[in-house]
Structures are given as C-alpha cells and as structure tokens.
C-alpha cells in the first residue's frame, strides 16, 4: 500500500463572512478507498469537496491531493491536479449549449492529443459505460436529471482520473436511479481502483458505497469509521441522523 494517501486535510478551517463552515477539519482518504462525507444541509460537506480541487481555498490549514498541497500550487500545478481528479456536481453542471457527446468530448479536446476519431471512440466508450450512448446527439436539456448525472459522470471520467469527487449523487433522483448511480461508482472502484469521495445525506447510499463514513456537523468531523462503526457511534447526533434518515 502506498504511504501517501490520495487526499489529506490538515487542520482546515474556512469561513464565509461571519459563518464558520469548516473548523479545524483533519482526515485522510487512502488510495482506492470510497470515503463518504455525511451530514445535514449546510454542514460544510460541499465546501470540503471543493477544497480538494482548489475551487475554494482554505483560510488556514492544508489540503493535499496525491501529495501536492493544493493551496500552494500555481495555475499549472492546479491544472495538473485537476486533470487527475474528476468532479461530479450536484446538478451535473453540464455545458448546456453543447450536446451530451460534446460535453464528454470537452476535456479530451482540451487536454489530450487524441485525433477526432479517437475522441469519437472514447466518447462512445464512456457513454456506453453509463448506458447513454444512444443519447449522444441530444442537448442536456433534452435528457432527464438521472441521465444528466450519468453524462456528468462520463465527463468526469474522460481523463481517467485516479480520484473521483461526487457531490450529492442521489439528489433529485428517484431511488432506483440513485441505486444505478451508486452501482456505477462501485463498479469504477472495483475495476480501476479509483478513489471516490462522496458527499451525501443519503444514508443507504453511503452504506452501499462507503468503506469509510465521516459525519460532518457544524464544520467539524463528529465521528468517522466503517458503516458498522458509525452505526454504533456514541455521538447522539450521529445516531439521530442515521435513524431519521432511515438508515438503520
């Protein structure tokens, strides 16, 4: 096992104005691990994820991705890290003025020297993986929310990232589609050893995907461990959250 974790947070704090969003948060995500960050809305989950690709800089503390301190990187360094990390946004964030296929081809055109023919084949391959190859020519507005999410996943995977960050994979989706997305993530982890960090408040989904769950509350990690550990957590809030969300 490699000594350097895929992601490491060291005493990270972040505030927006008066509101403290992260308060001295430290954790590590091992390579090939599926790490789920749980917590209520506004607990700082998405901000944690955004720190990992430098979309949000920490006020204090350090964030390491593949051993590189994200906060200290110049734009070339940040580009290098971002190429190794895929990001699936909560509402997919597809480019709405280009087709589904063009969305997936976008990172390939920007960052590879592939020919149009090779890009074409790669896009077909990625869209086949997420079961949407027949929707390639459609505009993002012409496909459903679940499909958009899968297109977002295909786009995030285009550059074969070693790390995949996923913001609320099940938000706005029906339970069946939500499970399909979870299965896609699990498949990725099994087949390619991709490190996956998922932010969610969907407990069943977190249990299905996560090797480690961390419960974030008011900017701090209240508890963390395997799904079984967390089910026996001594933290009352964690227990309440797990029960109310129907996880136990």
């Amino acid at each position, binding site marked *: 096992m490699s000594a350097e974790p895929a992601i490491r947070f060291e005493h990270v704090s972040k505030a927006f104005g008066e509101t403290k969003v992260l308060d001295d948060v430290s954790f590590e995500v091992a390579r090939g691990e599926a790490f789920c960050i749980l917590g209520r809305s506004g607990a700082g989950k998405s901000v944690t994820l955004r720190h990992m690709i430098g979309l949000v800089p920490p006020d204090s503390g350090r964030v390491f991705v593949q051993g590189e301190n994200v906060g200290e990187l110049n734009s070339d360094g940040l*580009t290098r890290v971002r190429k190794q990390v*895929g*990001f699936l946004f909560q509402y997919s*964030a*597809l480019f709405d003025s280009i087709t589904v296929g063009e969305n997936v081809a976008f990172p390939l055109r920007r960052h590879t020297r592939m020919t149009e023919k090779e890009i074409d084949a790669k896009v077909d391959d990625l869209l086949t993986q997420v079961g949407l190859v027949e929707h390639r020519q459609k505009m993002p507005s012409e496909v459903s929310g679940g499909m958009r999410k899968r297109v977002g996943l295909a*786009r995030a995977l285009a550059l074969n990232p070693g790390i995949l960050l996923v913001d609320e994979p099940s938000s706005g989706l029906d339970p069946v589609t939500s499970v399909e997305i979870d299965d896609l993530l699990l498949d990725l982890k099994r087949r390619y050893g991709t490190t996956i960090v998922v932010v969610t408040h969907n407990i069943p989904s977190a249990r299905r995907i996560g090797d480690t769950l961390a419960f974030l509350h008011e900017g701090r990690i209240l508890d963390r461990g395997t799904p079984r550990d967390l089910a026996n957590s001594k933290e009352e809030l964690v227990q309440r959250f797990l029960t109310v969300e129907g996880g136990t």
Partner: protein
Amino acid sequence: MGLMSVFAWIGDVFRFGMKSLWRAPRRPFELAEISRQIYEVGFRSAPLIAAAGFAVGAVMSMHTRASLERFGATSLIPMGLGIAMIKETGPLVTALLVSGRVGAGIGAELGAMRVTEQIDALESLAVDSFKHLVVTRVVACMAALPILTMLMDFTGIIGGFVAESVISGMSFDLYFDSALSAIDFDDYIPATVKTILFGFIIATISSYLGYFTKNGTAGVGQASTRSVVFSSLIIILTNVIVVKAIFFFMPGAAQ
C-alpha cells in the same frame, strides 16, 4: 459608504478588464473560442447594425435637408451626413446597439453558467474559466466593434443617399464624392479606433457582472440588465473624454 463602494466597484471592474488584457497574449490562446465569439458578437450583430445604420442615415439626411433648405444649402447634405456619421454617430450608435445585444447576452450567459455551476465545472476540468470565458469575449468585442462601426458608417451613408436621391434625384457618384470630400484620416482613424475601447468596456462590464453573479435566476436577470445599463452609460461618459483627448492630441480632427 455608498460613494466608496461605487469607487470600489469601478476599481474591481477596471482590474478585471486589465487582467483580461494581460492574459490575452498568454497561453492557451483559445483561438477557437475567440473565433466563435467574434462570430457571435460581430457577424451576428451585422444585420442589426446594417439596418440601424441605413435607417439612421436616411433619417439624418431628411432632417439635414429640412434645416439646410432654409439657407439654400442642400448641396451640403451629403458632406454633413458623412462627417456626422463617421465622426460620431457611427461609432456611438454601434457601441450602444452592441452593448444592448451583446452586453445583455454576455451578462446573461455567464450569469447562467455561474449559477448552474458550469464555471466551476470548467475549472474542475482543468480549464481556466477566466481565460476561456472572459478573455475571449473581451478580445472578440475589441476586434468586432471597429468592423461593425465601419459597416454602420457605410450603411448610414447609403441610407442618406437613398433618402436624398428619392427627393432630389442626386446621382450616386456625386453623393459619395460630396459625402467623403470633407473626411480625412484625422477624422476617420481616431473615431473608428476609439470603438476598440468601447468594445473593451462592453465586454469587461458585462463579463464582470455575469462572472460574479449571485442569487440564482434573479441574479442572472439583474446581471443582464445591469450589463446594458452600465456599459451604455460608461460608453457615453467615456466618449466625452475620448473626444476631448482626440481634439487635444490630433487638432486636425477638431476642424
């Protein structure tokens, strides 16, 4: 406090615009996106500019005739129209029309991209969103404005000719000779080149408002409206200063 925040805002916008000029000649050059934007800003504005130029030229010609007829000086109509169109009306009307069409578009498009996280998505895909979205639009507007102004000047003079020939039957050759007789490079070059600055103003202000949009859909609408209002206002005010500067540095243009 109110006045201070206005100055702070102007300072932020100015720095934003200067940053785009600084970044423009640096890699990646984004040539494909710049070409796409020039097509959007320039080519697709051309019908509007041509139609507006024609109408403005025709109306100006009719008004000029009404005034000059009293003094029996109708032969000066083409010359007056040529000077007015090339020195001031063409550049200013073009800039205001583009700020309406393009400024609103940039404000709304970037605003929508911000609130739907598409700008974050660009960043997550290791693309410099500022370079890809802002620099390309600033360069495109700066390139397109002088060309659109030339189109407006030309169609304005044609519009004037059509209006005049219907009334007086003046020939095409005579009209153009007369219209361009009083125009030299001191008139034409600074008046056209200043529209590069107008292009910079339109793209900078509307990109800034779009790029930093907040408050969801309402914010997008606000960014779009403000893009038009602020860029039009700043263009009109800047024009006063620019004209004064042109007269100072190129006295020939004041004659």
